[in-house]
């Protein structure tokens, strides 16, 4: 949760991105109404609390060569899914890995891993690697390739 009004104003001032000026934290401090040092201390605190995952650049996957992405979904035994989820999440081509509820009867999958590659074949090769890790603990799987981005917006909280 957000701790106070300064923290809320700091989130509002930075959610669209950091300003591209030599002293970005001083620039933000003026908008927030605190000192430049406090902006840096509060960002360090937000990072330590996990409210901010990291500060950095988010490349367009297509622009840096990842033209194929598949949402791989797996029906994994309940007593094995957590240990296996950690292992799948650690694979370098997986950017997100979650356990989600099944929606039986037509959606038996409880493990989701987003796989990126420069072609569908590369994604499918990575999916085969995941299959090998899951081995007999996986009953079924599928890969849902994305064919169009319909919307991509950042998170925005209200003012």
């Amino acid at each position, binding site marked *: *949760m957000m701790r106070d009004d300064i923290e809320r104003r700091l989130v509002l001032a930075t959610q669209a991105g950091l300003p591209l000026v030599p002293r970005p934290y001083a620039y933000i401090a003026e908008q927030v109404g605190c000192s430049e040092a406090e902006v840096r201390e509060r960002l360090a605190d937000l990072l330590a609390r996990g*409210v901010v995952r990291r500060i950095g650049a988010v490349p367009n996957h297509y622009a840096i060569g990842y033209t194929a992405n598949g949402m791989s979904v797996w029906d994994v035994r309940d007593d094995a899914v957590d240990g296996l989820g950690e292992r*799948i999440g650690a694979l370098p081509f997986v*950017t997100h890995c979650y356990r989600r509820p099944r*929606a039986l009867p037509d959606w038996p999958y409880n493990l989701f891993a987003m796989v990126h590659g420069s072609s569908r074949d590369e994604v499918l090769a990575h999916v085969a690697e995941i299959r090998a890790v899951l081995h007999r603990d996986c009953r079924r799987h599928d890969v849902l390739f994305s064919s169009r981005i319909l919307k991509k917006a950042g*998170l925005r909280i209200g003012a």
Partner: protein
Amino acid sequence: MRLAPMSERPARASIDAIDRRIIDALQGGFPLVERPYLAVAESLGIGEDDLLARLDRMLASRVLTRFGPMFQVERMGGRFVLAALAVPEDRFDAVAEQVNALPEVAHNYRREHCLNMWFVLATETADGIGAAIERIEHETGLAVRAFPKEREYFVDMRLSVRQGHDA
């Protein structure tokens, strides 16, 4: 409404070897010092002005989708939920327009499956999710399948720039 096809991607020629090193360097931790761009530029052996100009250009050409803090909504009391719809093909674009019109819809992808529309709802409070789902169901007449996460094993959008993408 105009929808971006997957083929609409930034020109590859817009990235050179220095840009590639910048992207890789800036996917890690950005320094919390008074002049962070100067610190990064020095580590890359380029000028601060050059780094700022390249970041500005890469953001404008959408090689970078954003640069700044990445917030974890749940730690701020908010909620993210993945959801899907099985949309009849002849209504696909119209339903995409209805779904995308909700500010709670952060991302939306067409995927090859009978559940052919997958979107992420992001709300500032937990109870905003149910209201957004009801509204989509009411407007589209389609049943929303929600897949809230039960456990997160790994999330990191970091991917290194592929070789051959420096034009």
